[in-house]
């Protein structure tokens, strides 16, 4: 087994050839499945939503596959390994958030929309301005989420393939992007869904095996595992920076330090719990089932699987803390994101690492493919068909535009991924959640539940939420101005760098104290939605009646009627 010293010397663990082989096998198998299920030319309905032909259980597993992103697996495990219980908040927030989707959103959305999130929001409001606004916000949220996934790919690549050089890492990110676009182009929503189902099963199985393995090493005692993690942390070189290693199982290690960090924690918690039901690629999945009953069943399955998985990540996180240790994790390329793969190597050597790494790659591929489908549907259906062509385009044209957009989004993902390589991905995803909770969720809830909601309210809420959340992120410590810390560089030297996006500590234009904007931007978006609606007299009673009756009874939901 590789000791600490050999690991510090080499930037790679395991056997790169093996890692690549397992990944290639996964790609080949899934690609075969995608080609098999794809079935030639597609209508818009098939391309975006697989014709609503999946069962609730299949869709529930696919939702888990879509949702258990690299952030969940790599990011949360890393956060728990290094920060202890403060990292656990991510798991809880990401899970509890599903109740918003279950109780308030999933079934009503399924009953009132067909292709995209904007279908529901534009239902009783003015089509063009709403579709434009929603498209902008869908694309922004998807972009943040994409960056997080691609950042995960970058870190993973450097760890597994031993490529610390910029060029080589970028090349692998490009390969991931190209494979993903291929899935989307060939398979549409149906192919992508199957990739997500396969990936969900593999990921949950792998996490389960690792959890049992870790617990087995500690006599199946959670308390024993915590003792182990604390012991390892005590022996760690940066024990003092973790503010007392014996506090690893305590709350408040990272966020309890100052009043600002405490408020930041609340802001993060709010964004996590309200973000899920505003994520476009999650909402899109509700259209892949035929009825609201199946949509309900999808969310039920998703909650069981996602909840179960997050319980496993708690053990995996502490397991990585105990068996790998904070020193190795912090020193590895990809840092916190490497905790889970490193634990796999510690447990089962090169083979286990190869399998877990292959699955982590698959995770990134599947999630990125889901995001790409959603974003390209928004481009083609909302912007091209409904806005530019005013509803007057053929299915063929629409699908063609969707495919071109998928390629364009793939390119953005590749270049974005190259730039975002070293960010913690759980954290980047949390920002995507904040934007989704601010720009999308208020409008979704208002249009489903509030009679007095209208176009002005929707536009104020969407743009207000979008601008405030992204604006506050730009002027937050995430982008600039965090105090510099000693950071190890790829060539082995050390430098004083800021953990902000601008690593140069001299660049500092932040004035917003919190990392996460949710606490301000989410209430603001709700308020603007209310205020805008109150200031406008627009009210379409007929459309409201139609939407409300259909949302609750499922009347009029069925296969496509416009052929």
């Amino acid at each position, binding site marked *: 087994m590789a000791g600490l010293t050999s690991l510090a010397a080499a930037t790679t663990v395991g056997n790169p050839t093996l890692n690549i082989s397992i990944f290639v096998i996964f790609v080949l198998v899934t690609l075969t499945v995608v080609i098999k299920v794809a079935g030639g030319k597609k209508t818009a309905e098939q391309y975006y939503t697989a014709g609503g032909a999946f069962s609730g259980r299949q869709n529930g597993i696919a939702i888990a596959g879509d949702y258990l992103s690299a952030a969940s697996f790599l990011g949360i495990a890393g956060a728990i390994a290094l920060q202890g*219980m403060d990292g656990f*908040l991510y798991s*809880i*927030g990401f*899970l*509890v958030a*599903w*109740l*918003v989707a*279950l*109780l*308030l959103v999933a*079934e009503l959305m399924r009953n009132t929309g*067909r292709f995209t999130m904007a*279908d529901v929001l534009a*239902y009783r409001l003015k089509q063009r301005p709403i579709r434009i606004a929603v498209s902008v916000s869908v694309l922004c949220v998807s972009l943040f989420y994409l960056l997080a996934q691609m950042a995960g790919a970058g870190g993973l690549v450097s760890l597994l393939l031993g490529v610390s050089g910029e060029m080589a890492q970028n090349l692998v990110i490009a390969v991931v992007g190209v494979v993903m676009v291929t899935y989307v182009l060939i398979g549409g929503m149906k192919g992508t869904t199957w990739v997500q189902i396969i990936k969900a099963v593999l990921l949950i199985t792998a996490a389960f095996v690792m959890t049992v393995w870790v617990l087995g090493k500690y006599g199946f*005692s*959670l*308390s*024993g595992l*915590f*003792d182990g993690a*604390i012991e390892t942390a005590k022996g760690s070189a940066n024990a003092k920076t973790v503010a007392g290693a014996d506090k690893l*199982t*305590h*709350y*408040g290690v990272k*966020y*309890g330090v100052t009043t600002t960090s*405490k408020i930041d*924690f*609340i802001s993060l*918690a709010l964004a996590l*719990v309200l973000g899920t039901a505003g994520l476009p690629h999650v909402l899109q999945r509700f259209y892949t089932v035929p009825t609201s*009953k199946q949509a*309900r*069943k999808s*969310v*039920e399955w998703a*909650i*069981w699987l996602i*909840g179960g998985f*997050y*319980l496993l990540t708690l053990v995996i996180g502490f397991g990585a803390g105990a068996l790998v240790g904070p020193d190795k994790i912090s020193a590895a390329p990809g840092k916190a994101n490497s905790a889970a793969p490193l634990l796999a190597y510690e447990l089962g050597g090169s083979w286990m690492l190869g399998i877990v790494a292959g699955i982590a790659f698959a995770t990134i591929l599947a999630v990125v493919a889901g995001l790409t489908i959603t974003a390209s549907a928004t481009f083609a259906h909302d912007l091209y068909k409904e806005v530019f062509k005013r509803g007057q385009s053929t299915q063929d044209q629409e699908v063609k535009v969707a495919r071109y957009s998928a390629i364009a989004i793939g390119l953005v993902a590749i270049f974005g991924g190259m730039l975002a390589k070293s960010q913690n991905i759980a954290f980047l995803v949390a920002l995507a959640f904040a934007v989704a909770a601010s720009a999308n969720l208020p409008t979704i809830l208002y249009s489903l*539940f509030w009679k007095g909601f209208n176009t002005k309210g929707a536009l104020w809420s969407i743009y207000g939420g979008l601008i405030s959340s992204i604006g506050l992120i730009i002027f937050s410590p995430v982008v600039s101005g965090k105090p510099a810390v000693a950071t190890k560089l790829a060539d082995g030297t050390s430098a004083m760098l800021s953990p902000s996006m601008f690593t140069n500590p001299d660049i500092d234009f932040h004035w917003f104290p919190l990392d996460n904007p949710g606490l301000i931007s989410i209430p603001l978006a709700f308020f603007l939605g209310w205020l805008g609606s109150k200031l406008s007299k627009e009210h379409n*009673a*007929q*459309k409201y*009646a*139609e939407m*409300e*009756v*259909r949302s*609750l*009874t*499922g*009347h*009029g939901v069925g296969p496509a*009627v*416009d052929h």
Partner: protein
Amino acid sequence: MSNHAPAEADDQYMAVQATPEFQALRKKFRGFVFPMTAFFLAWYFLYVLLSIFASDFMNKALFGKITIGLVFGLLQFVTTFAITFIYARWANRDLDPAADAVGATLDGQREH
């Protein structure tokens, strides 16, 4: 929307919306999901606020290294699973028949 109903059908929706049956369905749905949402959000933020403002309490060990906070966190999982189960059972048994009944009157009217 591509599947616009003709104008009379829109009025039918308004007629259905005004029926006591539909109002009862709406009340039934909201009467369940709104209090449930209020409950789980309050419960979640209790956990969040305690873990950040009462971390001494949350960090008290119950046995070994198992703290009150950990148990609190795991209880969030338990309640999430429980609410999912309760809602699904209620919706399948109570909500769906009521919704189908209202939906059926619409289908019936449309066939005239």
